[in-house]
């Protein structure tokens, strides 16, 4: 596996969708190639740092306002 091959498998590797054979090839390439190792590690960290983060908080006030507005619009339609 070379660097281009690794890049094409990177998404599936990060999503745990690769066969065991391909995973092994990825690991043996990154053991020798520092650039790919760094790309793989920091891309993994990128996903982890964003995972499930509520970057836009919905305050209780906003939620109530939204909820009431939605229900008012929908009920009016009935």
């Amino acid at each position, binding site marked *: 596996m070379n660097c*281009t091959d690794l*890049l*094409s498998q*990177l*998404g*599936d590797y*990060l*999503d745990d969708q690769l066969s065991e054979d391909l995973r092994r090839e990825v690991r043996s390439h990154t053991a020798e190639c*520092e*650039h790919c190792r*760094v*790309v793989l*590690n*920091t*891309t993994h*960290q*990128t*996903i982890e*740092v*964003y*995972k*499930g*983060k*509520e*970057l*836009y908080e*919905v305050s209780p006030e*906003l*939620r109530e*306002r*939204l*909820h009431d*507005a*939605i*229900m008012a*619009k*929908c*009920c009016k*339609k*009935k």
Partner: protein
Amino acid sequence: MPAIQSPGTEEIHPDVELVARAKEGDAAAFEQLVRQYERQIFRVAQHITQNREDAEDITQDAFLKAYEKLDQFQGNSKFSTWLVRIAVNESLMRLRKRKTSKTVSMDEDVQTEEGSIPRDFAEWRPNPEQLYNQSELGDILRRTIQGLPPGFRTVFTLRDIENLSTEETAEALGLSVPAVKSRLLRARLQLRERLSRYFAQKKEGKTA
């Protein structure tokens, strides 16, 4: 209308019953669905449009559309995926209106060179969670994702922030699974590149 389910094979999603009741005019069932998904729909709309007022309008419009079209919902996908799809379409339409001269679609801005080679090969140590407090980190993450083209931002939001599966993301965006995978990888690599600049700076600042 009787739901056809082969007995005992698959677990039925609790939304299926709520949707069936809502279709028959049960307002409480519909309200329960609103309660379950209003925050997620708002977050998705805000990520795509980057505008709070737009996100509020879109959330209301998306639920209204869902309510009006409930009869057309066939149950081939999850109700939540169907709802996200409506919200994504409304959000992209809003972006299109905002930049009157330019069209915005899932195809825009993503026609960059295939498989662009990553640059910036510095490791992140210590990890960002240890370098910044929660509110600083939140600012950085918001600013960074804001800089992505809308097509990439949307794919990344659904798949990696809101945790939809690749298949659900494809359904919500009207894209094929391979198209989602390819855009997602490029979105992830672009974000990585942008975040690397931040985290490398901080590290240099500390050791200097």
